[in-house]
């Protein structure tokens, strides 16, 4: 992503606020870019840094050819500092070093940019050390803090930065991009419903993982209705051996959630909105067999399981309990 107009394709509001701010000389001292992976936060931060440093902007677009632009692009501009977690966290020493850097005169100009990635991993000491600095940076400084969720950031930091919330890429866009890269639509749709991060979605296709995982969950969902007595066996012989770690269990649960959501869509006559596009018959059938109330309960059950999966409940137990809930009263 090189220009504001490119950014505005996916994040129109943010692109407009930032571009206008550069154009009208109204940039804030600190921004917090909040959003999921793949929403373009990093690229937008770099774009902003360039637009800020470039000496020949045209309508606030960086020229991309001047020295400042080229050095920012290559990642070794002396006045662009990037901080990433050192191991698990961003440590107070990293912030101290940054401050020291800033207290010295600008290497090239008075302008300096610092980009902090995964800001939520800052230690309490690091965050506190950053506070005053954000409030009154010396010279012309621009801070861009990047995080997955503003909810995890200290309120005092939040209030000192302008928060920009990046919206996730709509699944249709991700699907389209995946299909363009040669993946089959039915699996592309599934991957796109699991993540809005294109790279992450693409990795799901390694060794046909997504297509296998999908088939297995479809089988389970089918069994739950048509052969309830077999569902337990399917879990043990098909689901558990394939979805092995915690992360994969979460994905399996997501796939189940999407299934019920599809059934619901069928029920309300929105067949064009389903994800399991090759399963229309089964979905339609289930749409007639499950009441909306039961569907709501099933969705809730899967969501509860998802939360429990994050809280150290053994996967085996978790899925078995879920199965019981899905089968009760049906």
């Amino acid at each position, binding site marked *: 992503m090189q220009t504001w107009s490119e950014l505005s394709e996916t994040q129109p509001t943010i692109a407009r606020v930032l571009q*206008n701010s550069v154009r009208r000389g109204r940039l804030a001292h600190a921004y917090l870019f909040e959003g999921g992976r793949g929403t373009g936060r990093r690229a937008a931060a770099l774009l902003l840094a360039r637009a800020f440093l470039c000496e020949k902007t045209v309508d606030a677009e960086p020229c991309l050819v001047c020295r400042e632009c080229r050095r920012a692009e290559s990642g070794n501009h002396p006045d662009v500092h990037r901080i990433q977690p050192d191991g698990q966290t961003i440590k107070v020493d990293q912030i101290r070093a940054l401050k020291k850097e800033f207290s010295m005169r600008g290497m090239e100009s008075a302008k300096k940019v610092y980009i902090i990635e995964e800001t939520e991993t800052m230690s309490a000491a690091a965050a506190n*050390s950053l506070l005053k600095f954000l409030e009154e940076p010396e010279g012309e400084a621009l801070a861009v803090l990047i995080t997955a969720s503003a909810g995890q950031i200290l309120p005092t930091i939040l209030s000192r930065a302008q928060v920009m919330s990046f*919206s996730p890429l709509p699944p249709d866009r991700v699907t389209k991009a995946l299909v363009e890269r040669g993946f089959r639509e039915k699996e592309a749709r599934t991957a796109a419903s699991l993540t809005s991060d294109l790279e992450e979605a693409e990795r799901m296709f390694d060794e046909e993982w997504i297509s296998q995982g999908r088939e297995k969950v479809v089988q389970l969902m089918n069994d739950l209705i048509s052969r309830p007595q077999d569902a337990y066996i399917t879990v043990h012989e098909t689901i558990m051996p394939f979805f092995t770690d915690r992360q994969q269990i979460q994905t399996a649960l997501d796939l189940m959630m999407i299934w019920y959501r599809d059934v619901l869509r069928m029920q309300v006559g929105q067949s064009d909105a389903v994800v399991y596009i090759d399963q229309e018959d089964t979905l339609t059938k289930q749409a007639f067999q499950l009441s*909306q109330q039961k569907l709501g309960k099933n969705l809730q059950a899967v969501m509860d399981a998802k939360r429990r999966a994050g809280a150290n409940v053994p996967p085996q137990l978790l899925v078995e309990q879920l199965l019981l809930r899905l089968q009760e009263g049906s």
Partner: protein
Amino acid sequence: MSYQALYRVWRPHTLKDIAGQDHITKTLKNALVQQKLSHAYLFTGPRGTGKTSAAKILAKAVNCRHAPAEEPCNECDICRGISDGSIVDVMEIDAASNNGVDEIRDIRDKVRFAPNTAAYKVYIIDEVHMLTTGAFNALLKTLEEPPPHVMFILATTEPHKIPLTIISRCQRFDFKRITSHAMLARMQEIVAADEIAVEEDALSLVARVSQGGMRDALSLLDQAVSFAEGTITKEDILAIIGSVSQEHLYELVEAVHSGSVGEALKMIDEMMQTGKDANRLMEDVIFLLRDILMVKAAPQLEESQDRLHGDDSFRELSEKLEQAWLFQMMEKLNHFQQEMKWATHPQLFLEMFAVQASQQTTALPASGESAPQSSTVEALEQKIVHLERTVQKLQREGVPAASQPQAAEQPVKQEKRSRNTGPSQKSRAVAKQVERMLEHATKPQLQQVKSSWGNVLEQVKKQSMPASAWLNDCQPTAASEEYVVLVFRNEMHRSMIDEKFRELVESSASQQFGAAVTLLTILEADWEKVKENFKKRQKTSPSGEDNEESGEEAPPEEEKNPLIDEAVRLVGEDLLEIKE
């Protein structure tokens, strides 16, 4: 040199400029004039409510050349020196980044010396709750015997983290969330002075979403200035915060309330596709319902009057929604809101809400928590439905034979029918009925049937497992106000439902749809033919008059009355069947 954010530029420089904290500023002004100042103050309250600003103003006011006065002059050398930080007697310490004991010890040592330029040494300690225990102890020593020329102002968002021994030595002021009224007044001052063009509506919205924090409000306004081309509108603000307009919210709540799950889901989808934020939408719905509850509970309240003023759709909506329903929804919403904060797919929680809440509407009497009451309602409902069906049957078929009880009438008739005709013939005969019925069938009707068909199945299942098993093979494919067409793949299934379980399924369906329903059961192959015929007919006669059909079944002239027409049609079919 670089651009200054609005909240920095408009940081208050006098007590009078601090919005919404009159109870505090009045006391401070009096203390300043009467020179009855304390040696230690504790300012507590949420962020963005003016604590640090008040501290700085107080530091200037006590030292100002024009003291004693209720405000600093901001003009004299002392005031200016404090503002630009050149007077070291006023020290601002951020406990968050200086939480060591050393810094506080340093204060303790230097505190004894007289001030350099100013009359008072003022130590402003921001985020004071961040101090370590050691540092608190050091601070306490100083607070116990403060030199006469020293003043401490401690500020915090989290007073509960401060030792009581410290609190008891301070005069405490609790800063409150700024009311939207006070916030609006301050913002109006600012936009007027900065010549920012902004619509009144837009400002109110900013005040509302900032929830009492001036800094958040000005920060939002700042973004709006960048975002807008020309005058800032309400739509600009909505776009920035990722919210939908009130009108869209009303529509969503209405859809949920009327039980239109499909519609609600579609709306949510559209909102998400246009980049709205799921969490924000959830919050907006909560706010809306809260407003409605307020208006219903206390219509005389000034806030209620404000909310109702000039918003007719809001008034209409609030009249439509029952208080009990609102309470139930609020409970659900709060629950979902808690859960969705951590979710990877927050949109799903919105959808879940739509599904469960819509369920609440349609199934309110049937599946409420309070079992005895709801089963009474259910029983009543069943009775009404039964009565309705009886009345309809009477209208169609005339008064039944003298001694025959109503309920038993139809099955008897069914048996008679099946004796007279072979199974597939039966399906074909129904085909004629279906063909007629299609003239009155509509898409929305079908949609309604489809979306609650699962409920019908459940209801049937409760009463008869075998019935539900036979029913699993079929699908509703057309619906009018009175009829539902069920298509079966298997004749065995079809006839079981048609003859053995008709009454049960019809009454479950009638109850579910809230109107009397008659089933028309048909085999898949016959259904396909009917569809073909119907399509052809639609082409040749767009008016779709049904008496243009084959002369055989044309009703007699004198029976144009739609009600009788309907009845005769049924009887006619029966006769027709026998002829075949």
